[in-house]
């Protein structure tokens, strides 16, 4: 088992290298000059520009620049912005906000999605089942941009049930944005849960459990659920990455100072080190989430063994 974990972590290294190289190259290829973007409309002192270009290795070829970045990265140094602020300082606070948001969304997704899915599956083929299916379809069809603004206006501004924007109200600030962010994922997970449980309830071992004279509660809650959960875990794990990456729109609507907002403004300012830093951490989170999912798999399904 531990050998498997080590092997998976080693496998993560080329993935990380590839991801950083790719992002570094994309930001490098963006039109416009970072120093010019930094100065905005102000007139620049040519001497200062020359010094800054030298300091940030902007005159070196692409691969040399990337090399400097990598060397720093392996020393735990994510570099600094053009204004001289360490990237780690910027990321620390922002990631906290986004992780709070993503976790809120993930918990909502798991609770509502699995709950609705089970409800629909146990009423398979009846009116309630069709209603759940129809409402998930609606949820999938409406973009986050729309649900975000509509719910903000209705529940935030009009009813005043939730804070309208910002993170000043503690955990309550994350409820509405979390739900908006989780929206389509809830719908997909509901459908996945429903299908998975309906399928499982048709299995031979469920017939065996019924023939053993077990109460229906136990047949569904123990024998079926344990098997039906296995594919859901994979989906949830993979979705954590999507939620963190997809937070850009939600963070903008609800004015949450997370990495989504930061990423957006950093791309605008050609802050290569910030963009690559954030993406690197995102990739790392994604890899770890997938590793945890794979390990959970072995716990849930004894047929899976890692050597």
């Amino acid at each position: 088992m531990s050998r498997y974990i080590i092997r998976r972590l080693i496998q993560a290294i080329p993935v990380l290298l590839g991801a950083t190289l790719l992002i570094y190259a994309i930001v490098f290829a963006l039109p416009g000059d970072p120093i010019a973007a930094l100065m905005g409309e102000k007139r620049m002192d040519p001497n200062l520009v020359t010094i800054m270009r030298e300091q940030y290795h902007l005159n070196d070829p692409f691969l040399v620049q990337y090399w400097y970045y990598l060397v720093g990265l392996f020393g735990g140094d994510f570099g600094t912005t053009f204004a001289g602020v360490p990237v780690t300082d910027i990321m620390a606070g922002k990631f906290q906000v986004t992780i709070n948001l993503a976790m809120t969304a993930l918990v909502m997704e798991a609770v509502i999605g699995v709950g609705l899915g089970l409800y629909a599956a146990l009423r398979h083929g009846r009116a309630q089942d069709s209603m759940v299916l129809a409402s998930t379809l609606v949820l999938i069809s409406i973009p986050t941009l729309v649900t975000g603004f509509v719910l903000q206006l209705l529940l935030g501004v009009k009813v005043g049930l939730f804070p309208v924007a910002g993170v000043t109200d503690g955990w309550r600030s994350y409820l509405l944005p979390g739900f908006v962010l989780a929206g389509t994922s809830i719908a997909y997970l509901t459908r996945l849960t429903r299908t998975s449980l309906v399928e499982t309830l048709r299995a031979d071992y469920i017939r065996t459990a019924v023939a053993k004279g077990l109460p229906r509660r136990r047949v569904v809650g123990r024998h079926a659920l344990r098997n039906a959960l296995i594919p859901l875990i994979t989906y949830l794990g993979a979705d954590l990455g999507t939620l963190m990456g997809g937070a850009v729109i939600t963070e903008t609507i609800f004015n949450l100072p997370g990495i989504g907002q930061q990423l957006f403004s950093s791309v605008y300012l050609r802050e290569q080190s910030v963009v690559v830093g954030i993406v690197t951490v995102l990739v790392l989170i994604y890899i770890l989430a997938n590793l945890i999912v794979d390990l959970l798999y072995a716990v849930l399904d004894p047929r899976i063994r890692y050597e």
Partner: protein
Amino acid sequence: MKKTSTSVLPAGGALGDEPLLAVDDLHVEFVTRQGVVKAVNGVSYSLNPGETLAVLGESGSGKSVTAQAIMGILDMPPARIPRGEVRFRGTDLLRLPEDARSQVRGQRVAMIFQDALSALNPVFTVGSQIGEMFRVHRGASRRDAEKKAVELMDRVRIPGARQRVHDYPHQFSGGMRQRIMIAMSIALDPEVLIADEPTTALDVTVQAQIMELLAELQRESNMGLILITHDLGVVADVADKIAVMYGGRIVENALVHDIYRAPAHPYTKGLLDSIPRVDQKGQELYAIKGMPPNLLAMPSGCAFHPRCPYRQDNCVTEAPPLYEIGPTRSSACHYWREVLDGSHG
């Protein structure tokens, strides 16, 4: 372990005239998009303690559906039971409320299935699946349930039961898995055990071992055994009587030695003739011509008439009743005398 009789049903003991289990004029239908499929059309059979009844028939003959109706594990809908009774110790199980029924299911009437790999839950240890019977029905503690599971695994002769009780179904061979299935079904000393093709998925050598085990367990406990199979070879040694099913009906009822000596229905005769025999080596193997009937469009008259070598004109129009042709024997063929004579000759 003695049964704690909490149910409304009479406990074990003298039965009088009533058999242990009696299926009477049972009808089962499935409502499908293509129409109503009549899977079982008036099946009757009975079983006494210590007796083995073999129910013989090809796929779609209704033999498994009858068993599932007895157990009460049919999905209703799409299935429905418009007519018939399943009397267990004189009480009609079909009219019993669900809570009383579940006192019978698994505890007093148990069932084992064909493919033990898919019939066992892959994510729980075999010990917990066997022990579950004691945990749920007898309120046993986890430790006691495990102890019972080991005892049962010993009883069905699984080597190293104490170590293997924590293994999962996929870690066992096919034969061992079926033994686990059997251990689970006999856990609470059922009075009736229904085995639905228990050896079909197994190697021939393992088949014999499993049949031997079932026969032995039956001798020890005097339970009634219903053996559902399509394989005449399997039943010869263990069965007392045979019910042959075709197209959802019983076409022949007989004691096992009578049927082997001289079948009284052309379908039974066809089945017996299609068993490979050593003294016919090199000759072409006999096969019943034609296909099993389509349950959505059953042939008129006798369902077997399109495939029957004894067919006369009235077979096409007139469905034969189950003729009583002896004290322990019946046949649903207008020309059972000819079939019987032909068998002797």
